């Protein structure tokens, strides 16, 4: 059903146009003999076609069209203006002001029907395109969300695959990822960056997939040579993840290669120092070490929270970016909640 707004100060014209609109079929005419009241109606209602007389008291047709077009979302609505044939100057002005077409006085049914139908077809096309655009937009958003969910799941599973080869557990990667998000939030990073680090941090140790079992699973202390091989997991992780078109995987590559760098330049693999270490690497360094210290492993007992905090504090400016330690400790209540939420499970057996 099309809503057709008719504005004319002459009752006889209103009645005539209403009768003609009803003859078009599938139309609901809304009548106003006062353009100011019609304009008020337009603020809350969107007609499919406007038929407006030119000469009216208080607000003429040109003024009405200008005001109507200025309302949000009314720019495309077809407007037919009723004028006499001899009013060429008015017609030019109306066209410039946003009228789409004209109806001649006296009104002729054949002309009226043809012009009105044309305008209503235009409106139908506009609505179809708008609906289609909005439908497509929703569909793209739904598909994108699907892809993102799958990407997140794959990232988590790849990260778990690496963790399966390690005494660490799935709960470790979840805790350290959420700790990283806490640090990012307290550093003032925006919501998008916070989500990005949450999703990318689990990939920090994915390069361990390429480390031989005799080193990765060795219960005792690693020899110098073994440790050198172990350090290679940072590069391996980067090689595995770098060059992806996914923003999350690319962030994972950056974290993989930078999370063992130390603020004073004594870390690996590139001995980067200070702000030369990517921010996500500096954040993950704090989150990963804290969780490693406070988790029980086959070769060590879990540290107390207090001891782990002392370790972080003592590592400010040496191992860790002082700002990241501050941000971590500022989110202490969240850290405790995360620890409670993601408890260690029994290590999976392959």
């Amino acid at each position, binding site marked *: 059903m099309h809503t057709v707004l008719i504005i004319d100060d002459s009752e*006889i014209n209103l009645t*005539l146009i209403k009768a003609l609109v009803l003859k078009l079929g599938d139309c609901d005419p809304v009548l106003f003999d006062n353009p100011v009241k019609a304009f008020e109606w337009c603020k809350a209602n969107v007609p499919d076609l406007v038929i407006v007389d030119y000469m009216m008291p208080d607000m003429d047709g040109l003024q009405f069209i200008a005001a109507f077009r200025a309302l949000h979302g009314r720019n495309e609505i077809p407007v037919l203006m009723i004028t006499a044939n001899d009013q060429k100057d008015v017609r030019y002005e109306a066209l410039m002001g946003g009228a789409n077409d004209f109806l001649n*006085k006296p009104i*002729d*049914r054949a002309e009226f029907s043809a012009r009105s139908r044309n305008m209503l077809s235009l409106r139908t096309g506009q609505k179809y395109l708008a609906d289609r655009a909005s439908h497509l937009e929703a569909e793209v958003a739904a598909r994108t969300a699907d892809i993102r969910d799958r990407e997140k799941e794959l990232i988590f599973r790849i990260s778990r695959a690496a963790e399966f080869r390690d005494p660490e557990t799935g709960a470790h990667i979840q805790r350290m990822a959420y700790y990283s998000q806490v640090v990012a939030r307290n550093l003032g990073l925006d919501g998008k960056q916070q989500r990005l680090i949450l999703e990318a941090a689990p990939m920090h140790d994915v390069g361990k997939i390429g480390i031989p079992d005799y080193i990765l699973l060795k219960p005792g202390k690693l020899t110098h040579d073994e440790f050198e091989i172990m350090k290679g997991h940072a590069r391996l992780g980067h090689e595995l993840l770098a060059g992806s078109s996914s923003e999350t995987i690319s962030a994972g590559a950056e974290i993989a290669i930078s999370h063992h760098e130390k603020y004073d330049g004594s870390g690996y693999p590139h001995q980067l120092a200070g702000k030369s270490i990517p921010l996500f690497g500096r954040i993950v360094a704090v989150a990963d070490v804290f969780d490693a210290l406070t988790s029980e492993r086959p070769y060590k007992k879990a540290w107390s929270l207090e001891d782990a905090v002392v370790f972080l504090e003592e590592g400010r400016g040496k191992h860790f970016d002082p700002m990241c330690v501050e941000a971590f400790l500022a989110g202490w209540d969240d850290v405790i909640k995360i620890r409670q939420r993601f408890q260690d499970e029994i290590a999976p057996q392959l």
Partner: protein
Amino acid sequence: MLAYSLNRPVILERLGDDEEILLMMIDMYLQDVDNNCAALSSALAAGDQPTLLREVHTVKGLLATFADEDGAEMAAASESRLRAGDTNDVEAAIAAMQARLREVAEVLKREIGG
């Protein structure tokens, strides 16, 4: 100016041969004609040029709707003069328009057997 006679075929052609609409319009014209004449007189008496111009414009459209070409032409001439600020003989022009509106009303009344 020739006396008005209802050119039914021309009007009906414009209305898509819809007798129902024609009768409805005649009925409305007869209901409104006194108001139209009064509105002209009142704008003239008040010296309200914009309102008078608008009322003359309305009369022009009204007479054209009933295929009164002579009457509509007379109103159009008055409208042009008023638009140009020429008020010479405006009283006579308004009186002539009111007389024409009533003349048309009489013909329409006869048409519907009133």
